[in-house]
Protein backbone atom coordinates (compact mmCIF):
# COMPACT_ATOMS: atom_id res chain seq x y z
CA UNK A 1 0.00 0.00 0.00
CA UNK A 2 1.47 3.35 -1.03
CA UNK A 3 -0.14 4.92 2.04
CA UNK A 4 1.79 2.72 4.35
CA UNK A 5 5.09 3.36 2.58
CA UNK A 6 4.46 7.10 2.83
CA UNK A 7 3.62 6.76 6.51
CA UNK A 8 6.80 4.86 7.16
CA UNK A 9 8.79 7.53 5.37
CA UNK A 10 7.20 10.21 7.54
CA UNK A 11 8.06 8.19 10.65
CA UNK A 12 11.70 7.79 9.68
CA UNK A 13 11.99 11.50 8.88
CA UNK A 14 10.44 12.17 12.28
CA UNK A 15 13.08 10.00 13.91
CA UNK A 16 15.79 12.04 12.22
CA UNK A 17 14.22 15.24 13.54
CA UNK A 18 14.01 13.76 17.05
CA UNK A 19 17.71 12.88 16.88
CA UNK A 20 18.56 16.41 15.73
CA UNK A 21 16.33 17.85 18.47
CA UNK A 22 17.93 15.73 21.18
CA UNK A 23 21.45 16.70 20.12
CA UNK A 24 20.36 20.34 20.07
CA UNK A 25 18.82 19.89 23.53
CA UNK A 26 22.12 18.57 24.88
CA UNK A 27 23.77 21.64 23.36
CA UNK A 28 21.21 23.85 25.06
CA UNK A 29 21.92 22.31 28.45
CA UNK A 30 25.56 23.09 27.88
CA UNK A 31 24.78 26.59 26.66
CA UNK A 32 22.43 27.31 29.56
CA UNK A 33 24.64 25.93 32.30
CA UNK A 34 28.05 26.90 31.02
CA UNK A 35 27.73 29.94 28.77
CA UNK A 36 24.71 31.84 30.08
CA UNK A 37 25.06 34.13 33.12
CA UNK A 38 23.36 33.16 36.39
CA UNK A 39 20.36 35.33 37.16
CA UNK A 40 21.16 37.62 40.08
CA UNK A 41 18.05 37.15 42.22
CA UNK A 42 16.88 33.64 41.42
CA UNK A 43 20.26 31.99 41.10
CA UNK A 44 20.64 28.58 39.50
CA UNK A 45 16.92 27.57 39.63
CA UNK A 46 16.33 30.16 36.91
CA UNK A 47 18.06 27.78 34.48
CA UNK A 48 14.89 25.70 34.40
CA UNK A 49 13.34 28.59 32.48
CA UNK A 50 15.16 27.39 29.36
CA UNK A 51 13.21 24.11 29.49
CA UNK A 52 9.98 25.29 31.05
CA UNK A 53 9.13 28.09 28.63
CA UNK A 54 9.84 26.07 25.45
CA UNK A 55 7.82 23.13 26.83
CA UNK A 56 4.89 25.45 27.51
CA UNK A 57 5.27 26.89 24.01
CA UNK A 58 5.24 23.42 22.46
CA UNK A 59 2.20 22.36 24.49
CA UNK A 60 0.26 25.45 23.44
CA UNK A 61 1.31 25.06 19.82
CA UNK A 62 0.23 21.40 19.88
CA UNK A 63 -3.09 22.36 21.42
CA UNK A 64 -3.81 24.93 18.70
CA UNK A 65 -2.83 22.42 16.02
CA UNK A 66 -5.25 19.84 17.45
CA UNK A 67 -8.03 22.43 17.37
CA UNK A 68 -7.28 23.47 13.79
CA UNK A 69 -6.90 19.87 12.55
CA UNK A 70 -10.19 18.99 14.26
CA UNK A 71 -11.99 21.82 12.51
CA UNK A 72 -10.51 20.80 9.17
CA UNK A 73 -11.46 17.17 9.79
CA UNK A 74 -15.12 17.97 10.31
CA UNK A 75 -15.04 19.94 7.09
CA UNK A 76 -12.97 17.66 4.80
CA UNK A 77 -13.44 14.30 6.58
CA UNK A 78 -9.91 13.23 5.67
CA UNK A 79 -8.74 10.49 8.10
CA UNK A 80 -5.19 11.82 7.85
CA UNK A 81 -6.28 14.98 9.65
CA UNK A 82 -7.68 12.87 12.47
CA UNK A 83 -4.48 10.91 12.62
CA UNK A 84 -2.51 14.15 12.77
CA UNK A 85 -4.75 15.50 15.55
CA UNK A 86 -4.31 12.32 17.55
CA UNK A 87 -0.52 12.36 17.20
CA UNK A 88 -0.35 16.03 18.10
CA UNK A 89 -2.56 15.59 21.16
CA UNK A 90 -0.41 12.75 22.47
CA UNK A 91 2.79 14.72 21.99
CA UNK A 92 1.16 17.84 23.42
CA UNK A 93 0.13 15.88 26.50
CA UNK A 94 3.77 14.93 27.02
CA UNK A 95 4.96 18.52 26.69
CA UNK A 96 2.28 19.75 29.08
CA UNK A 97 3.53 17.19 31.62
CA UNK A 98 7.07 18.59 31.20
CA UNK A 99 5.68 22.08 31.70
CA UNK A 100 3.71 21.06 34.80
CA UNK A 101 6.67 19.30 36.41
CA UNK A 102 9.40 21.86 35.64
CA UNK A 103 7.18 24.69 36.92
CA UNK A 104 6.93 23.45 40.54
CA UNK A 105 10.63 22.51 40.50
CA UNK A 106 11.33 26.18 39.87
CA UNK A 107 8.54 27.42 42.13
CA UNK A 108 9.74 25.67 45.26
CA UNK A 109 13.12 27.46 45.55
CA UNK A 110 11.94 30.77 44.07
CA UNK A 111 8.37 31.16 45.37
CA UNK A 112 8.84 28.87 48.36
CA UNK A 113 5.88 26.75 47.30
CA UNK A 114 5.40 23.90 44.84
CA UNK A 115 2.04 25.00 43.65
CA UNK A 116 0.17 28.25 43.70
CA UNK A 117 -3.41 28.69 42.46
CA UNK A 118 -2.09 31.28 40.18
CA UNK A 119 -3.55 32.36 36.88
CA UNK A 120 -1.11 30.79 34.52
CA UNK A 121 -0.69 27.61 36.55
CA UNK A 122 -4.42 27.01 36.57
CA UNK A 123 -4.61 27.74 32.88
CA UNK A 124 -1.95 25.18 31.99
CA UNK A 125 -3.49 22.63 34.32
CA UNK A 126 -6.79 22.98 32.48
CA UNK A 127 -4.92 22.60 29.20
CA UNK A 128 -3.47 19.36 30.52
CA UNK A 129 -6.92 18.10 31.50
CA UNK A 130 -8.29 18.95 28.06
CA UNK A 131 -5.54 16.87 26.44
CA UNK A 132 -6.23 14.10 28.93
CA UNK A 133 -9.98 14.16 28.27
CA UNK A 134 -9.37 14.13 24.53
CA UNK A 135 -7.16 11.06 24.80
CA UNK A 136 -9.48 9.31 27.24
CA UNK A 137 -12.42 9.78 24.90
CA UNK A 138 -10.44 8.34 22.01
CA UNK A 139 -9.50 5.36 24.12
CA UNK A 140 -13.11 4.66 24.97
CA UNK A 141 -14.44 4.64 21.39
CA UNK A 142 -13.95 1.61 19.17
CA UNK A 143 -15.29 2.71 15.79
CA UNK A 144 -12.54 4.70 13.97
CA UNK A 145 -14.90 6.96 12.04
CA UNK A 146 -17.00 7.77 15.09
CA UNK A 147 -13.87 8.31 17.15
CA UNK A 148 -12.56 10.78 14.59
CA UNK A 149 -15.79 12.80 14.53
CA UNK A 150 -16.26 12.82 18.29
CA UNK A 151 -12.71 13.75 19.16
CA UNK A 152 -12.76 16.49 16.51
CA UNK A 153 -15.73 18.02 18.33
CA UNK A 154 -13.79 17.97 21.61
CA UNK A 155 -10.77 19.48 19.84
CA UNK A 156 -12.82 22.36 18.45
CA UNK A 157 -14.71 23.09 21.67
CA UNK A 158 -11.40 22.94 23.54
CA UNK A 159 -9.96 25.60 21.29
CA UNK A 160 -13.07 27.74 21.86
CA UNK A 161 -12.67 27.27 25.62
CA UNK A 162 -9.05 28.43 25.77
CA UNK A 163 -9.76 32.19 25.57
CA UNK A 164 -12.37 31.83 28.31
CA UNK A 165 -10.00 30.05 30.67
CA UNK A 166 -7.42 32.67 29.80
CA UNK A 167 -9.89 35.42 30.65
CA UNK A 168 -10.93 33.75 33.90
CA UNK A 169 -7.44 33.33 35.23
CA UNK A 170 -6.31 36.83 34.24
CA UNK A 171 -9.12 38.35 36.25
CA UNK A 172 -7.38 36.99 39.32
CA UNK A 173 -4.04 38.18 40.53
CA UNK A 174 -0.94 36.45 39.26
CA UNK A 175 2.41 35.74 40.87
CA UNK A 176 3.77 34.15 37.72
CA UNK A 177 6.55 36.16 36.07
CA UNK A 178 5.11 38.53 33.49
CA UNK A 179 6.03 38.11 29.83
CA UNK A 180 9.58 39.30 29.21
CA UNK A 181 10.05 38.48 25.56
CA UNK A 182 6.71 38.59 23.75
CA UNK A 183 5.48 41.98 24.89
CA UNK A 184 4.84 45.31 23.19
CA UNK A 185 8.17 46.83 24.28
CA UNK A 186 11.70 45.51 23.70
CA UNK A 187 12.56 42.15 25.30
CA UNK A 188 13.95 42.90 28.77
CA UNK A 189 16.20 39.88 28.76
CA UNK A 190 19.98 40.19 28.45
CA UNK A 191 21.17 39.00 25.07
CA UNK A 192 22.97 35.89 26.42
CA UNK A 193 19.76 34.69 28.10
CA UNK A 194 17.57 35.57 25.14
CA UNK A 195 19.93 33.68 22.85
CA UNK A 196 19.71 30.54 25.00
CA UNK A 197 15.92 30.81 25.21
CA UNK A 198 15.51 31.25 21.45
CA UNK A 199 17.82 28.31 20.78
CA UNK A 200 15.82 26.20 23.22
CA UNK A 201 12.53 27.24 21.62
CA UNK A 202 13.90 26.15 18.25
CA UNK A 203 15.09 22.80 19.65
CA UNK A 204 11.74 22.12 21.33
CA UNK A 205 9.84 22.98 18.16
CA UNK A 206 12.03 20.55 16.19
CA UNK A 207 11.35 17.90 18.84
CA UNK A 208 7.61 18.61 18.72
CA UNK A 209 7.52 18.22 14.95
CA UNK A 210 9.71 15.11 15.12
CA UNK A 211 7.55 13.41 17.72
CA UNK A 212 4.34 14.26 15.86
CA UNK A 213 5.73 12.92 12.57
CA UNK A 214 6.97 9.73 14.17
CA UNK A 215 3.74 9.04 15.93
CA UNK A 216 1.77 9.91 12.81
CA UNK A 217 3.84 7.50 10.75
CA UNK A 218 3.75 4.67 13.25
CA UNK A 219 0.00 4.71 13.85
CA UNK A 220 -1.54 2.55 11.13
CA UNK A 221 -4.58 4.66 10.53
CA UNK A 222 -7.06 2.24 11.96
CA UNK A 223 -5.69 2.03 15.44
CA UNK A 224 -5.93 5.57 16.64
CA UNK A 225 -7.27 4.83 20.08
CA UNK A 226 -4.77 4.63 22.87
CA UNK A 227 -4.14 0.96 22.36
CA UNK A 228 -7.14 -0.01 24.44
CA UNK A 229 -8.64 -1.78 21.47
CA UNK A 230 -5.68 -4.09 21.32
CA UNK A 231 -6.66 -7.71 21.51
CA UNK A 232 -10.16 -7.00 20.34
CA UNK A 233 -9.11 -8.24 16.94
CA UNK A 234 -10.48 -5.41 14.89
CA UNK A 235 -7.33 -3.27 15.02
CA UNK A 236 -4.61 -5.86 14.74
CA UNK A 237 -6.45 -8.73 13.14
CA UNK A 238 -5.65 -7.81 9.59
Amino acid at each position, binding site marked *: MPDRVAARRIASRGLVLIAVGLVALAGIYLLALRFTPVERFQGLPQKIFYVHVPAAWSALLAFSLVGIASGLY*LWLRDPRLDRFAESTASVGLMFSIIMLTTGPLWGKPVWGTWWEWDARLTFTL*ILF*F*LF*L*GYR*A*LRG*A*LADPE*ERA*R*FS*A*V*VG*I*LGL*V*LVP*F*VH*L*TVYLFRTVHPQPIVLKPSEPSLPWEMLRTLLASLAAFTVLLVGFIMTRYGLGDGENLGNGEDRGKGEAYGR
Partner: protein
Amino acid sequence: MGEFLGVALAVAAKDLRVERRSKTALVSALAFAVLTLVIFNFARDAASLSRTAMAPSVLWITFAFSGVIALNRSFTLERENAALDGLLMAPVSRGALFVGKYLANLAFVFAVETVALPLFVVFFGVDLRGAAGGVILVAVLATAGFVAVGTVFAAMTVRTRFAELMLPLLLLPFMLPPVTWAVQATARLLSGRPASEIAGWIRLLGLYDLVFITACLLVFPSLMDE
Protein backbone atom coordinates in the same frame (compact mmCIF):
# COMPACT_ATOMS: atom_id res chain seq x y z
CA MET B 1 -37.99 28.49 11.52
CA GLY B 2 -41.42 27.53 12.82
CA GLU B 3 -40.81 23.91 11.89
CA PHE B 4 -37.39 23.98 13.54
CA LEU B 5 -38.88 25.17 16.81
CA GLY B 6 -41.74 22.73 16.53
CA VAL B 7 -39.35 19.79 16.22
CA ALA B 8 -37.19 21.08 19.05
CA LEU B 9 -40.17 21.47 21.34
CA ALA B 10 -41.49 18.03 20.39
CA VAL B 11 -38.17 16.42 21.28
CA ALA B 12 -37.98 18.34 24.56
CA ALA B 13 -41.58 17.47 25.41
CA LYS B 14 -40.88 13.79 24.73
CA ASP B 15 -37.92 13.80 27.12
CA LEU B 16 -39.83 15.60 29.83
CA ARG B 17 -42.82 13.28 29.41
CA VAL B 18 -40.60 10.24 29.92
CA GLU B 19 -39.15 11.94 32.95
CA ARG B 20 -42.53 12.86 34.38
CA ARG B 21 -43.74 9.29 34.11
CA SER B 22 -40.76 7.58 35.68
CA LYS B 23 -39.36 10.33 37.92
CA THR B 24 -36.40 8.08 38.80
CA ALA B 25 -33.72 10.36 37.40
CA LEU B 26 -35.23 13.54 38.77
CA VAL B 27 -35.64 12.12 42.27
CA SER B 28 -32.11 10.70 42.24
CA ALA B 29 -30.58 13.95 41.01
CA LEU B 30 -32.49 15.87 43.67
CA ALA B 31 -31.38 13.49 46.39
CA PHE B 32 -27.82 13.85 45.12
CA ALA B 33 -28.01 17.65 45.30
CA VAL B 34 -29.37 17.58 48.84
CA LEU B 35 -26.77 15.05 49.95
CA THR B 36 -24.01 17.24 48.54
CA LEU B 37 -25.30 20.15 50.61
CA VAL B 38 -25.41 17.95 53.72
CA ILE B 39 -21.90 16.62 53.17
CA PHE B 40 -20.53 20.13 52.74
CA ASN B 41 -22.00 21.14 56.03
CA PHE B 42 -20.13 18.32 57.78
CA ALA B 43 -16.94 18.78 55.76
CA ARG B 44 -16.61 22.28 57.20
CA ASP B 45 -14.66 23.02 60.33
CA ALA B 46 -17.30 25.06 62.14
CA ALA B 47 -14.75 26.74 64.40
CA SER B 48 -12.62 28.22 61.64
CA LEU B 49 -14.96 28.74 58.71
CA SER B 50 -18.34 30.43 58.90
CA ARG B 51 -21.27 29.04 56.96
CA THR B 52 -21.76 32.23 54.99
CA ALA B 53 -18.11 32.41 53.91
CA MET B 54 -18.41 29.03 52.31
CA ALA B 55 -21.95 29.42 50.97
CA PRO B 56 -21.31 30.62 47.37
CA SER B 57 -18.80 27.86 46.68
CA VAL B 58 -21.06 25.21 48.18
CA LEU B 59 -24.00 26.38 46.11
CA TRP B 60 -22.03 26.24 42.87
CA ILE B 61 -20.31 22.96 43.49
CA THR B 62 -23.70 21.46 44.26
CA PHE B 63 -25.19 22.93 41.08
CA ALA B 64 -22.23 21.82 38.96
CA PHE B 65 -22.10 18.25 40.22
CA SER B 66 -25.85 17.70 40.10
CA GLY B 67 -25.74 19.19 36.62
CA VAL B 68 -23.28 16.52 35.50
CA ILE B 69 -25.39 13.79 37.10
CA ALA B 70 -28.48 15.12 35.36
CA LEU B 71 -26.76 15.36 31.98
CA ASN B 72 -25.59 11.78 32.14
CA ARG B 73 -29.22 10.77 31.97
CA SER B 74 -29.93 12.75 28.80
CA PHE B 75 -28.76 10.26 26.18
CA THR B 76 -28.84 7.00 28.13
CA LEU B 77 -32.54 7.32 27.55
CA GLU B 78 -31.98 7.28 23.80
CA ARG B 79 -29.58 4.36 23.86
CA GLU B 80 -32.14 1.93 25.19
CA ASN B 81 -33.96 0.17 22.37
CA ALA B 82 -31.88 2.20 19.89
CA ALA B 83 -34.33 5.06 20.29
CA LEU B 84 -31.79 7.50 18.89
CA ASP B 85 -31.70 5.65 15.56
CA GLY B 86 -35.42 6.10 15.31
CA LEU B 87 -35.09 9.75 16.08
CA LEU B 88 -32.37 10.16 13.45
CA MET B 89 -34.51 8.48 10.80
CA ALA B 90 -37.05 11.25 11.13
CA PRO B 91 -36.57 13.87 8.39
CA VAL B 92 -35.75 16.70 10.78
CA SER B 93 -32.72 18.91 11.15
CA ARG B 94 -30.00 17.79 13.57
CA GLY B 95 -29.87 21.33 14.92
CA ALA B 96 -33.49 21.05 16.02
CA LEU B 97 -32.66 17.76 17.74
CA PHE B 98 -29.91 19.51 19.64
CA VAL B 99 -32.15 22.36 20.71
CA GLY B 100 -34.78 19.85 21.85
CA LYS B 101 -32.34 17.83 23.92
CA TYR B 102 -30.80 21.04 25.23
CA LEU B 103 -34.15 22.44 26.34
CA ALA B 104 -35.07 19.19 28.09
CA ASN B 105 -31.72 19.09 29.89
CA LEU B 106 -32.07 22.72 30.83
CA ALA B 107 -35.52 22.10 32.31
CA PHE B 108 -34.17 19.12 34.19
CA VAL B 109 -31.18 20.93 35.67
CA PHE B 110 -33.30 23.99 36.50
CA ALA B 111 -35.75 21.73 38.33
CA VAL B 112 -32.94 20.35 40.47
CA GLU B 113 -31.59 23.83 41.14
CA THR B 114 -35.03 25.15 42.04
CA VAL B 115 -35.29 22.59 44.81
CA ALA B 116 -31.66 22.89 45.91
CA LEU B 117 -31.68 26.69 46.24
CA PRO B 118 -34.26 26.98 49.07
CA LEU B 119 -32.61 24.07 50.89
CA PHE B 120 -29.29 25.83 50.53
CA VAL B 121 -30.82 28.96 52.08
CA VAL B 122 -32.10 26.89 55.01
CA PHE B 123 -28.98 24.77 55.55
CA PHE B 124 -26.46 27.57 55.22
CA GLY B 125 -28.40 30.36 56.91
CA VAL B 126 -28.11 32.61 53.87
CA ASP B 127 -30.13 35.78 53.68
CA LEU B 128 -31.45 35.91 50.14
CA ARG B 129 -33.61 39.01 50.60
CA GLY B 130 -32.61 41.56 48.00
CA ALA B 131 -30.26 39.12 46.29
CA ALA B 132 -32.75 36.50 45.10
CA GLY B 133 -33.27 38.06 41.66
CA GLY B 134 -29.56 38.39 41.07
CA VAL B 135 -28.75 34.87 42.22
CA ILE B 136 -31.47 33.43 39.97
CA LEU B 137 -30.18 35.44 37.00
CA VAL B 138 -26.62 34.21 37.62
CA ALA B 139 -27.86 30.64 38.00
CA VAL B 140 -29.83 30.81 34.75
CA LEU B 141 -26.93 32.27 32.77
CA ALA B 142 -24.26 29.92 34.15
CA THR B 143 -26.46 26.85 33.77
CA ALA B 144 -27.47 27.75 30.21
CA GLY B 145 -23.80 27.70 29.19
CA PHE B 146 -22.57 24.50 30.71
CA VAL B 147 -25.71 22.53 29.89
CA ALA B 148 -25.16 23.35 26.19
CA VAL B 149 -21.64 21.90 26.26
CA GLY B 150 -22.86 19.06 28.47
CA THR B 151 -25.58 18.15 25.97
CA VAL B 152 -22.97 17.76 23.20
CA PHE B 153 -20.62 15.76 25.41
CA ALA B 154 -23.39 13.55 26.77
CA ALA B 155 -24.32 12.64 23.18
CA MET B 156 -20.74 11.42 22.69
CA THR B 157 -19.97 9.80 26.01
CA VAL B 158 -23.10 7.68 25.87
CA ARG B 159 -21.43 5.77 23.02
CA THR B 160 -18.37 4.97 25.13
CA ARG B 161 -17.68 2.49 27.84
CA PHE B 162 -17.62 4.23 31.27
CA ALA B 163 -19.97 7.00 30.10
CA GLU B 164 -20.62 8.16 33.66
CA LEU B 165 -16.91 8.71 34.19
CA MET B 166 -16.15 10.19 30.79
CA LEU B 167 -18.71 13.00 30.94
CA PRO B 168 -17.30 14.76 34.05
CA LEU B 169 -13.75 14.28 32.75
CA LEU B 170 -14.63 16.14 29.56
CA LEU B 171 -17.13 18.59 30.98
CA LEU B 172 -15.51 19.85 34.19
CA PRO B 173 -12.79 21.87 32.42
CA PHE B 174 -15.58 23.56 30.46
CA MET B 175 -17.48 24.28 33.66
CA LEU B 176 -14.51 26.05 35.21
CA PRO B 177 -15.09 29.51 33.69
CA PRO B 178 -18.87 29.82 34.23
CA VAL B 179 -18.75 28.28 37.71
CA THR B 180 -15.85 30.53 38.78
CA TRP B 181 -17.67 33.61 37.53
CA ALA B 182 -20.93 32.49 39.14
CA VAL B 183 -19.20 32.01 42.51
CA GLN B 184 -17.69 35.50 42.27
CA ALA B 185 -21.03 37.06 41.38
CA THR B 186 -22.96 35.10 44.03
CA ALA B 187 -20.48 36.03 46.77
CA ARG B 188 -20.88 39.71 45.91
CA LEU B 189 -24.67 39.43 45.68
CA LEU B 190 -24.90 37.72 49.08
CA SER B 191 -22.73 40.34 50.76
CA GLY B 192 -24.86 43.13 49.30
CA ARG B 193 -22.26 44.71 47.02
CA PRO B 194 -23.46 47.29 44.47
CA ALA B 195 -24.77 46.09 41.12
CA SER B 196 -21.84 47.65 39.26
CA GLU B 197 -19.52 45.05 40.81
CA ILE B 198 -21.66 42.21 39.49
CA ALA B 199 -22.37 43.52 36.00
CA GLY B 200 -18.97 42.41 34.66
CA TRP B 201 -19.47 38.80 35.74
CA ILE B 202 -23.00 38.76 34.29
CA ARG B 203 -21.66 40.02 30.97
CA LEU B 204 -18.98 37.32 30.92
CA LEU B 205 -21.59 34.64 31.61
CA GLY B 206 -23.71 36.01 28.78
CA LEU B 207 -20.73 35.93 26.42
CA TYR B 208 -19.93 32.33 27.36
CA ASP B 209 -23.55 31.34 26.68
CA LEU B 210 -23.61 33.08 23.34
CA VAL B 211 -20.33 31.55 22.15
CA PHE B 212 -20.91 28.02 23.38
CA ILE B 213 -24.57 27.67 22.46
CA THR B 214 -23.63 28.74 18.92
CA ALA B 215 -20.59 26.44 18.81
CA CYS B 216 -22.59 23.49 20.12
CA LEU B 217 -25.37 24.10 17.61
CA LEU B 218 -22.74 24.03 14.85
CA VAL B 219 -20.88 20.89 15.93
CA PHE B 220 -23.81 18.79 17.13
CA PRO B 221 -24.97 17.69 13.64
CA SER B 222 -21.60 16.05 12.97
CA LEU B 223 -22.08 13.84 16.04
CA MET B 224 -25.31 12.52 14.65
CA ASP B 225 -24.53 11.41 11.13
CA GLU B 226 -24.40 7.70 10.70
